[in-house]
C-alpha cells in the first residue's frame, strides 16, 4: 500500500512539474530549514507565483515551440 502511495505521489509530482509547479512540501521544508522565521507562501500563493514565473519571458526564460 505504501509503495502504491509513493508511486502516486511521484506521478503527481511529475504531472505538476510538467506544468511548471514544483513540489510544495519541498519548498516549505526548504524555507523552514534555510530561512527559519521568515515568511512561507501558502500553497495558493506558491501556485500563483510559479504560474506567473512559468510564462514570464525574459533573457533566460524562453518557452519551447517544437
Amino acid at each position, binding site marked *: 500500500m505504501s509503495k502504491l502511495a509513493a508511486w502516486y505521489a511521484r506521478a503527481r509530482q511529475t504531472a505538476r512539474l510538467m506544468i511548471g509547479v514544483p513540489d510544495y512540501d519541498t519548498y516549505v521544508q526548504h524555507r523552514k530549514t534555510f530561512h527559519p522565521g521568515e515568511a512561507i507562501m501558502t500553497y495558493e500563493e506558491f501556485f500563483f507565483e510559479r504560474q506567473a514565473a512559468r510564462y514570464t519571458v525574459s533573457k533566460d526564460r524562453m518557452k*519551447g515551440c517544437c
Partner: protein
Amino acid sequence: MNAGPMGVGSKLMWAGVAGLGAVSFGIVALTRGEAVNAAWLVVAAVCIYFIAYRFYALFIVNRALGADPTRQTPAWRRNDGLDYVPTHRYVLFGHHFAAIAGAGPLVGPVLAAQMGYLPGTLWILVGVVVAGAVQDMTILFLSTRRDGRSLGDMIRAEMGPVPGTIAGIGVLLICIIILAVLALVVVNALKASPWGTFAVFCTIPIALLMGVYTRFIRPGRVLEMSIFGAMLLLAALLYGRTVAETPELASMFTFSGPALALIIIGYGYVASVLPVWLLLAPRDYLSTFLKVGTVVLLAIGIIIVHPDLQMPALTKFVDGTGPVWAGGLFPFLFITIACGSVSGWHSLIASGTTPKMIENENQVAFIGYGGMLMESFVAIMAIIGACVIHPGVYFAMNSPAALIGSTADQAAQVISSWGFVVTPDVLSQMAQDVGEKSILSRAGGAPTLAVGMATILSQFLGGKAMMAIWYHFAILFEALFILTTVDAGTRVCRFMIQDLVGSAIPGFRETKSWSNNLIGSALSCALWGYLLYAGVNDPFGGIYTMWTLFGTANQMLAAIALTLCTVVLYKMKKQRYAWVTIVPTVWLVLCTVTAGLEKGFSSNPAIGFLAQAGKFGKALADGNVLAPAKTLGDMSRVVFNNYLDGTLAIVFVAVVVVTVVYGVIGIRKALGTPTSTAHEVGAIGLVGGAR
C-alpha cells in the same frame, strides 16, 4: 549510472539486444515487395536506443564531458525551493520530455514519408543517436555547469558578443517561421471542417473557465481542474459531430483557409495580451497532459494493433520530384525531418529550467540524451502513422490542389498515374469514415497523422464507428497544443522584438508597460501573420514552400548550439573527444548551407526561390499568368513571397557561416592556451543526490 566493467550476464544481455536490433533492422531495411509490419520498426528503434544510451551516451558523459558526481549542481548551490530545486530524476525526465515534445516531430516525419518509410526512419534513428541527443545532453551539461544559464548567455560568454547577437537573431527568425508554419498546419486541418473547427473553438471558453476556476474558485487545484476541463473537451468533441450534421450549425463553423488564418492571427494577438492565468496557463495544462497522454495511447495502439506499413520502403520521389515538398534526398530529407532527429530549439530548453533542477551531473545522460530518444520515438510513431494508411490517401492528403485538382476523381487519376493506384471511392470512403466532406490537399502532417491514428486506435478501441471521433480527437489534440505554442511564441517574439527595438528606444524594453505589450504583440503577430497569410494564399500550397524554410532555420540553430559545444570542449582541453560534437556540427552545417544555397540560388524554379521569383516576374511583366496562379494578383504575390523566402534562406546561410568562423577562431585560441579557459561556475564538493 557509471559504466563499469561488465559481467558475463550483462554482456550476454547486451549481445541479445544487439542481435534482436540487427534482425529487426534487417527486416525493416531489406524487405522488398511485401508489406513490413510496424512492430519490426518499433523493436529495431527501441534496441538501437538502448544500445546508443548504454554505449554512446555514457561514453560521452564520462569521457568527453567528464561529468563529476561529486560536483554541486545549481539545484543544490542555489536551492531556493522555487526555480532551483534538486528534483528526482524520473520526475525531471517527465518535465524535460513534456517541455521538448511539440508539433515538430509529428509533422516532419509525416512529410518525409513521401520518399517511403525507409529514408525517414534511417535518419530519425541515426540522427538522434549521433546529433540530436548529443546536442541536448551536451547543452544541458554546459548549462548545469553555468548555473543554468541560457544558450544566448553561454554563446556570449564562451564565443563573444557578435556570435551571441547573431544567435539571437537566428532564434527570432525561427520563432516567427515556426509560428507561421504551425498556424498553417491548423488552418489546413480546420478549413471546411465544421466538426474540427467547433471542437477547437470550444477550447477557448473551456480554458477561460478553467482559468477562472484555478484563480478564484479552487485556487491551485490542478487535478480537479484538468479532469473538469478534459470532460468538457470530450463533450465538445462529441457534440462536434452534431454540429457537422446540422446544416445551420455547420455553416456557422465552416471557414475558408484565409478566413481561418485571420481568426488565428486575431486569436494570437488577444491571447498574448491577456493575463497568463486566464487563457494561456489553463490551455497549456490541458495541452501538456493531452499531449503526453496521446503519445502513450498511440504507443500502446501501435504495439497492440501492430499494423502493416502500406507505404513502400522507397518511392520514386527520392529523386526530388515529390509533390509534398520539393528537393532531393540530400539535403532536404534531413531538413524536413528536423525536430524528430535533431532540433535546435531543444538547446533553448536544455538551457532553461531543467539544468536548475538536476540533482547530479551524472544524470545528464538519462535526462538529456534519454529525453531526446523519447522524442525520436514519437517521430518514429508519426512515420508509422503516415505509412499505415493507403499511399494513395497519403498523397491525396498532402499534395497541393494545383497538382491533383479538387475532386476525388481528378486526384485518384493523377495519383494513380504516379504509380500509387487508388480509386476515387477509396478517397471519398476515407473522407466519409473520418466524418469530413473531403480529405484532399490537407498538407501539414496533422490531418494525415490523424487518419493514421484513427486507423490504428479504432482497431483496438471502438472499431470503424469510432474512426471519425478518433480522427477529430487527433486534430483537436494537435490544434490545442499548436495554439498554445502560438500564444506562448507570440510572447517570446514580442520580448525579443522589445529587446531589439529597446536598444534604440530604451523605453520600449519595459515589459510591464501595457502600451509596450500591445505594440509589441501587434508587431509580433504582424510578422508571423504575414507569413501565415502568404502561405494560406500561396497557389503552391504553403507547406510545400514554408516547411523547408522552417527546417533550415531549426537545423541552423542546432548547428549553432553544436558549434558552441565543440568550442567549449576545446576550451575544457577535451579536444581528444571533440569529434563527438564536431561530426554532427559538420553534418548540420553541410545540410543547412547546401539547403540554404539551393533554396536561394538553384536555377530550378521548383527549388530555388529566386529562380521562381524570376520566372514568375518575367511572365508577369509580359502580362501572362503561369499555373498554378490564377490571376495577375496571384502572380505578383508569388514573386514577392519568393523574393522574401529567398532572402531568408540566404540569411540562414550567412548566420551559420559566421558562427562557424567564430567557432574556428575560438578553437584556435583555446588550443593556444595550456589550461582550461571554459567559464564554469561553482566548485567541486560532495553533496546529496548521487545515485
